[in-house]
């Protein structure tokens, strides 16, 4: 187990090192799919330069990272490449230990043994991750924190899980929705039944919520003391929520708000932000016995609907797909969806070039590919969800279904 893992790590690091030194590095770091206004490395450097000049990094509209990131990079700016390479490594090691201990009837221990390796493979050698790493996007740090959070939750440590969740929320606002799956998992681990009337349920929930909120408050106050101003709150969270920057990216927001009538702008901003958060409660009700899958779906929804998505975010939830490879037989559209995703990823730079360089296309082309890519992702997630639910049905009702007259039955969703 260790040997193939080390091999994978070596290959991944080599690929990244080679790309860093090549001319592709500059090209990749300019790509809008990889670097968004929230996590572009150029902006981190700009923010640090402003800090050195004595101007607050948040006085302009360039820098939208949190103060802790500034100070982190203040010290490691010389070794930025190494930081990003090893962030990825850490990530894979954590995913390594991630072995879902959901006992399956249909899964064999042999299959499960190889899952961490497959996850590591999926993550490290994913072209999205490689590009994100070469572009030195701070998305890597986001992913690391979320990976640590998942690790801490799986291991059952409520305190660590709350701390990492607070860090993840502080970094970009959306991991707030991961509070629900983490809570459900920890409750399950403590064998506390989820009943609204149960006292122990509320007690544990309060404990976890208190841990989470306290760590969040501590981190925010620390940021305040680092820069002696509250400027970072409108610059970071106001920026994430109000979407003022309309640089094209792989998400749905940019063109929508570029073509929005001023009158409705606020309304639609609110609608889009609520859209990310409001799937939590229904999913929590439906998937309360399967918090790990809930976490996966939640991470996927965040990656698709957040205000400035990049391919680094997509790589995070795609890394979890090998965990659910036992659902393969129930997936309905996996072939066409993977084709859609691959083709769209290839078309992104082509249509960008045609729009900006060649001038022979216009923004609609890029927008169309954005739409298709997002539809592909949405259908992928819902396909996995469908497969999961269907397998659950088979688990409880048996694999071979017969109708009342003994013929082969079909399963429908009604």
């Amino acid at each position, binding site marked *: 187990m260790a040997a193939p893992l080390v091999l994978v790590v070596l290959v991944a690091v080599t690929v990244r090192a080679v790309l860093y030194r090549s001319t592709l590095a500059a090209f990749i770091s*300019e790509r809008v799919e990889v670097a968004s206004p929230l996590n572009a490395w*150029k*902006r981190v*450097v*700009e923010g640090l*330069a*402003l800090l050195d*000049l004595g*101007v607050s990094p948040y*006085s*302009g*509209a*360039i820098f939208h990272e949190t103060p802790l990131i500034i100070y982190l990079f203040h010290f490691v700016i010389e070794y930025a490449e190494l930081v990003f390479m090893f962030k990825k490594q850490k990530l894979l090691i954590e995913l390594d230990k991630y072995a879902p201990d959901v006992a399956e009837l249909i899964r064999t221990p042999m299959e499960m043994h190889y899952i961490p390796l497959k996850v590591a493979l999926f993550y490290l050698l994913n072209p999205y991750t490689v590009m994100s790493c070469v572009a030195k996007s701070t998305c890597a740090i986001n992913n690391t924190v979320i990976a640590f959070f998942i690790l801490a939750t799986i291991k059952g440590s409520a305190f660590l899980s709350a701390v990492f969740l607070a860090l993840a929320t502080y970094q970009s606002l959306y991991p707030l929705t991961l509070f629900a799956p983490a809570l459900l998992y920890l409750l399950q681990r403590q064998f506390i039944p989820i009943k609204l009337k149960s006292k122990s349920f509320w007690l544990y929930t309060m404990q976890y919520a208190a841990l989470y909120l306290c760590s969040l408050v501590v981190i925010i106050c620390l940021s305040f003391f680092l820069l002696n101003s509250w400027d970072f709150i409108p610059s970071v969270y106001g920026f994430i929520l109000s979407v*003022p*920057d*309309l*640089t*094209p990216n792989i998400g*749905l927001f940019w*063109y*929508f*708000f*570029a*073509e*929005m*009538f*001023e009158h409705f702008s606020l309304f639609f901003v609110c609608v*889009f932000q609520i859209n990310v958060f409001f*799937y939590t409660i*229904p*999913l929590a*009700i*439906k998937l309360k016995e399967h918090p790990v899958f809930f976490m996966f779906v939640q991470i996927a929804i965040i990656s698709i*609907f957040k205000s400035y998505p990049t391919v680094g975010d997509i790589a995070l939830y795609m890394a979890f797909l090998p965990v659910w490879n036992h659902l393969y037989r129930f997936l309905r559209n996996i072939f066409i969806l993977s084709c859609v995703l691959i083709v769209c990823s290839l078309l992104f730079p082509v249509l*960008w070039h045609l*729009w*900006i*360089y060649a001038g022979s296309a216009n*923004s*609609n082309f890029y*927008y169309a590919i954005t*739409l298709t890519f*997002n*539809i592909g992702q*949405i*259908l992928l997630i*819902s396909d996995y*969800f*469908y497969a999961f*639910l269907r397998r659950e*049905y088979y688990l409880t009702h048996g694999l071979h*279904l017969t*109708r*009342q007259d003994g013929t082969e*039955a*079909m*399963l*429908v*969703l*009604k």
Partner: protein
Amino acid sequence: MLAAAAALLLAAAGTVGAGRDALREELLLTPLPAGDVAATFQFRTRWDADLQRGAVSHYRLFPKALGQLVAALGVRELHLALTQGFWRTQAWGQLPLQAPAGAELWVWFQPTVTDVDKAWKELSNILSGIFCASLNFIDSTNTVTPTASFKPLGLANGTDHNLLRYAVLPREVVCTENLTPWKKLLPCGSKAGLAVLLKAERLFHSSYHSQAVHIRPICRDASCLAVSWELRQTLTVVFDTFSSGQGKKDWSLFKMFSRTLTDACPLASQSKVYVDISPKNKEKELLEVTPPPASVHEAIVQGDRRTYAVYDLLSPSLFNTSRSLNVQLKWKRPQDSSLREWIWAADWRDQHSHLQHTPISGLPCDPAGDCAVVSAALCAHSDYHHEGEGKQAKTAEAGAPTPWEMSRQCEIAQGSPGATDASLWLGYIHYQPAQDRRRPHLLEMLIQLPANSVTKITIQFERALLKWTEYPPDPNHGFYVSSSVLSALVPSVIAMKDMDVEQSPLFTSLFPSLDGSSYFVRLYTEPLLVNLPTPDFSMPYNVICLTCTVVAVCYGSFYNLLTRTFHVEEPSRGGLAKRLANVIRKFRGVPPL
């Protein structure tokens, strides 16, 4: 008798109370190296009254529109320039008073003004009405408050930079509509004096046209106990006489302006025409000015000793021979093409120590997002005579306001010295980053240029996609980035004497000089036209529909999976559609529904 004396006294008191005012007008004709001729008109009205204190109600030479403006809004200094074309420093040399292309307005307010932004807004609107220019587009997105450049040119009592506002509208076009109100502010209008030459159809048929208004307070006399107000109206125009004069370098007032001078403005106390006849290296014997000038004046302008032929329109002897004055410059020898090339090659710049700006028009632009803008290539040549005295470093201030649409990324100042190994010294940097839709970028740097070197300052920026309502009409024309400003104190090789403002020609007394060893020069770069990516303006409804469809696909899929459960399907017969479908399925070989 007593009543007459009382009336006389009252009249005298009335005149004294209103303050004396004086008008001087001047035209400077400068032949430029490439065959062009630059004509600079200056009209200076000086008024010994204090506009700020006491209600002044009697306006004589000073225009009432501007006087009331200064008094009501608490303006200390006002500089407005409307320019069309670009001054080619490389071909034409340095212009004493340069202005950027478009409209430039910078104003110092009095310390008594409490709300400077409100006064600025009112001022730009009123000026927009007076000059028929679109100055009302000046708002917070194109106004900056420079801290290092644009110090007051007149009397100043402490400089709080919050009282300064600077705005440039590079998109502004200058035309007859702006010239007419400008001419109306002159005491003689365009009916007498030098202003008769200002005919719009000739003035706008030129390579460069710049008209400006400068208002500033000055000392009333040497003791400086009281304040006078000075209004200077300048107009600079460059005619390309070589190409329009059938290949001859001759020029005359009539050829340029299609008018000649017939008399001086009766209200003017001084009215002169200066022609630059400084001997350039190889042209000394070739040019002749007719009619022969009555006197010759020598002055030191921008570190150069220059000779001027003077025609005084107020002297009675000028119009003795002919009723009109048509200053002409003639070549004594016939010209041929080799002469023209020879004149091109006579690089008179090399002989003088100066600061020269080379605008780079072709952009090394990576068309994706980032453009490396070479905003100024500064050549500092060491002086020909002072070679052995070591390096002469010149200090220059570069200010660069950039609109917020281009988010400025990394600023890289590179010095690429020629022979010497001097590193660039950056004394003071003031950087104010832009806020989207509220404030532009401002970068000011104090640089000391090592001698014998070329310094390039490169600023990278990214282009942003804007909301579709924020694009101007004709969005594919592009967005203008206003010119960068370079202000420098250039050491002068020839010591300049302190001169009395009242006695010296107007073109030498524009910038106050603190001592005789350096002169002030302000250069502007070319404005930049950047093409921003545009969204499709016909698509708002379509975009809303399509994006909401994608969100609805997600919502619908999740709704189905969350609210429905799996059931074993019970067969049901019947339905025509089903039976038809089953027939088709039987043909296909697929199990029936």
